[in-house]
């Protein structure tokens, strides 16, 4: 039997329960021993606009998404049109019979630009501009539309209604039934998805029954699905993973101002201020809770986090591009006054408000250069769930150890990816604190007598000392003395040299795959797992590829990256931005120019099919640079 590899898409109006459907499907499959990998796409809108979840379901842990999809659930007619190009030639498409009368011109939530390409396709095939037309289109490409009377089915099983509230469960339940999952797993999925609303569990279970009964009675032949033993895992998004890592890493003070796609992290933490601790070995320790402050703006958020850090508390803030722009001055202050500050930067499509709910990796150079003046800062990036967890711990470590701002970058794709993560290892990363001050009598906050640039860190509440964003002397008082200025600048920057020497290469840049491969991919962030899958796929076609994966941009691992690239053959830079920013940083640090790139800046995540296709085009010398276009 061929290994299960299902790509599934559930689409519907925002606010129409897509999240619950996603949670339910994930839980059901995970209980059957499967792994899931899903990405949520949505508009900057509360209710009405089109949103969808794209899942990949496999027994081994999937690391990327693939188009076309094998099964699509349309909770509204718009979904049929929005995703007309996303289905495979034998895909099953579940939709409501009541869509039959729907005309394309009434799909008001489809943006005019998208509408135009849909019209053009239907017109070119002489099809009607309505649901009949789109269904004919699907049949013509070999897909199988499955009409279900949503309202009638739901009314039969949940007469109290309203039926519209259960479309998501009906759609998800039907999917599970068609894919051959038994009803018990589906029921467990419901109990998980609605664990915070127990009053609606019973009615949703009845809708699941409606879905299974319907598939049973119909002519649809469900798939045969193998079941596997279940191991404990956590269903995490990137936002969740960072939150968990921060808390494990000793975060006790976090500030934020609401912004997509960053605030899910802070609100999750806000929900867990009363921390639960490990057993006996922590009995005699001072254990308290976490403080989360929702601030009036990002200026407040960054500077309040700085203030918290002055007491010795491990402090952080989380934001996205627009908020990060506002934080620049506070980051410069943290650099100047040597405050251990962690900023988690969730990138979305820019510039300006840009694509507020879509993916982007266009803030790398900005993060690297943020804040006026020259000061040391660290810029690190995560590419999968485990890295989100452990890098969050390391960020807090680096910030205190080197007394400087640390910018931890995540992209929207990773932030909103759903992934089943095997047990988190509480002993993987040690917590490292700041170099403590023991000389309380004659304390000099900025003691110059240090080889590594790191002066002992006194804290408010224990020490009397001063600090200022002006250039300062060892005591922290303002000075404009030329020689003190030089010494302070050099002391601060020396910390970056120290970090460069101390941090192991595996935390900075990693070469995955065969050293002597024909192709070397370069990437960072969420494309990591996708390219690892791509390498496996290409191998099947006899193409050998490896991946130089970047995790730390400041201090940049110049020597290592230079060595790897000098030995590489065809180098392809893969990034979700327009100007190949990581490649620019490589050139700046190593002098090596990376000529080939696969770039995407339409705000959607990359999928493995388009990356492989583009790789082959570059290999065939057809193009030096390919811009990817997948996504709805």
């Amino acid at each position, binding site marked *: 039997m061929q290994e299960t590899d299902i790509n599934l898409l559930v689409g519907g109006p925002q606010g129409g329960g897509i999240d619950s459907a996603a949670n339910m499907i994930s*839980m059901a499959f995970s209980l059957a021993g499967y792994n899931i990998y899903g990405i949520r796409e949505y508009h900057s809108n509360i209710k009405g606009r089109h949103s969808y979840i794209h899942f990949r379901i496999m027994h081994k842990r999937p690391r990327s998404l693939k188009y076309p999809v094998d099964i699509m659930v349309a909770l509204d007619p718009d979904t049929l049109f929005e995703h007309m190009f996303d289905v495979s030639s034998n895909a099953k498409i579940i939709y409501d019979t009541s869509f039959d009368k729907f005309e394309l011109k009434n799909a008001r939530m489809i943006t005019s630009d998208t509408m135009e390409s849909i019209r053009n396709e239907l017109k070119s095939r002489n099809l009607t501009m309505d649901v009949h037309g789109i269904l004919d289109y699907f049949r013509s490409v070999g897909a199988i539309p499955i009409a279900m009377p949503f309202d009638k089915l739901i009314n039969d099983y949940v007469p109290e209604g309203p039926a519209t509230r259960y479309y998501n469960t009906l759609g998800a339940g039907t999917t599970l039934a068609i894919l051959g999952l038994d009803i018990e797993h589906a029921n467990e999925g419901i109990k998980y998805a609605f664990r915070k609303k127990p009053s609606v569990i019973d009615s949703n279970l009845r809708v699941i029954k409606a879905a299974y009964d319907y598939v049973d009675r119909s002519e649809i032949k469900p798939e045969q699905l193998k079941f596997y033993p279940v191991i404990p895992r956590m269903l995490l998004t990137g936002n969740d993973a960072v939150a968990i890592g921060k808390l494990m890493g000793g975060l006790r003070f976090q500030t934020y101002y609401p912004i997509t796609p960053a605030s899910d992290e802070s609100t999750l933490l806000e929900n867990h201020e009363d921390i639960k601790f490990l057993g006996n070995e922590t009995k005699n320790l001072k254990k308290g809770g976490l403080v989360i402050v929702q601030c009036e*703006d990002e200026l407040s958020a960054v500077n309040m986090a700085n203030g918290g850090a002055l007491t010795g508390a491990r402090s952080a803030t989380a934001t996205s591009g627009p908020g990060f722009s506002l934080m620049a001055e506070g980051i410069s202050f943290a650099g100047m006054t040597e405050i251990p500050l962690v900023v988690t930067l969730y990138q979305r499509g820019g510039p300006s408000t840009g694509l507020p709910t879509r993916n982007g990796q266009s803030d790398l150079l900005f993060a690297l250069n943020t804040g006026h003046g020259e000061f040391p800062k660290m810029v690190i990036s995560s590419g999968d769930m485990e890295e989100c967890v452990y890098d969050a711990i390391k960020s807090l470590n680096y910030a205190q150890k080197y007394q400087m701002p640390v910018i931890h970058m995540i992209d929207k794709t990773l932030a909103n990816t759903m992934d089943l993560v095997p047990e988190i290892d509480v002993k993987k990363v040690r917590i490292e604190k700041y170099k403590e001050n023991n000389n309380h009598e004659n304390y000099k906050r900025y003691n110059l007598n240090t080889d590594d640039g790191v002066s002992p860190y006194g804290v408010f*509440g224990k020490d009397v000392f001063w600090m200022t964003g002006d250039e300062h002397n060892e005591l922290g008082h303002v000075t404009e003395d030329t020689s003190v200025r030089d010494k302070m600048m050099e002391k601060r920057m020396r910390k970056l040299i120290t970090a460069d020497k101390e941090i192991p290469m595996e935390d900075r840049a990693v070469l995955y795959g065969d050293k002597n491969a024909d192709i070397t991919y370069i990437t960072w962030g969420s494309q990591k797992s996708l390219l690892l899958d791509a390498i496996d796929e290409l191998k099947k076609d006899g193409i050998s590829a490896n991946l130089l994966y970047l995790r730390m941009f400041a201090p940049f691992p110049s020597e290592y990256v230079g060595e790897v690239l000098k030995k590489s053959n065809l180098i392809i830079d893969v990034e979700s931005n327009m100007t190949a920013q990581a490649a620019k940083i490589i050139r700046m640090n190593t002098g090596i120019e990376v000529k080939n790139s696969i770039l995407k800046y339409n705000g959607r995540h990359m999928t493995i099919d388009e990356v492989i296709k583009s790789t082959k085009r570059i290999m065939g010398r057809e193009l030096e640079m390919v811009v990817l276009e997948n996504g709805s």
Partner: protein
Amino acid sequence: MEKSVEKYNYRSDITIDWCPGCGNFGIVSAVTQALTDMKMDPTDVVAVSGIGCSGKTPHYLNIAGAHTLHGRSIPYAVGVKLANPKLNVLVMGGDGDLLSIGAGHLVAEGRRNSGIVVLLYNNAVYGLTKGQAAPTMPLNEKVKSIPRPNILDKINPATLAMASGYSFVARGFSSEIKQLSMLIEKAMKHKGSAIIEILQPCPTYNDVNTLDWFRKRVYKLEDDKTWNPVVNDKSEEEEKFNKGYNLSLKWGDKIPIGIFYENNTVPSFPERLSKIVPDYIKYPPSDQDVSDKDGYTIVDPIKTFIEKEIE
């Protein structure tokens, strides 16, 4: 730190470079007087300032001091206070710093009520940048440092503080040092956030609101023995707020100084947090162990985030 708080000198040995006759001298005296009277352990108090002449104040005090960014003194102070609620945190900011570039934070702090003390230095000009009009300068006022009469109108700091929800609102005068030090002491003992608007001359740039101009106009609220702005019961809240609010608006020939409003019935942010995080005051963020003896995390990710687990 073992320091005798009996004989402690709260003034540092840094040379003060404010202009002769600056109102800031009186503020430094009142602050050191209050700290002396309270026998304050110098490690229990932190001075936080922004930018401008006022921003230099922490350097002149022999207590922990953070001279931060323009407009951002309140966020820094709140960060310090909420991470270590045992600390007394004083904000020292000018009218431009707190009412223009930092006005959003000043307003937001009213509803947060973290328990910081805000000293708002009001001399109606931006001194350090050579005397431009500050947000407290009235419309059409012409001081010598501005080229034409002021084209913007003024904000009344005490009234804004009342409207923003500060639970302690007062006004002082930099030459009434005894009263000012009493106000600072009361503000520091108040649980919620306090704000004291401090009227002061700028002898270099403001030739209208001079020392004499203020002396002729100010009168002390506490001289009226019936004046009682303290709310200890919710039933008194509306009446006392209205009285204090109306009084704060008074300006002209007679300018009231003293406490406008003190409400002890509003829970402070630390008190609100304690309801969610039971050990917050005992082990605040600044005073927690974050790792075990081997350096590993003490947080149980599964138990804490149990709803994310799937078995």
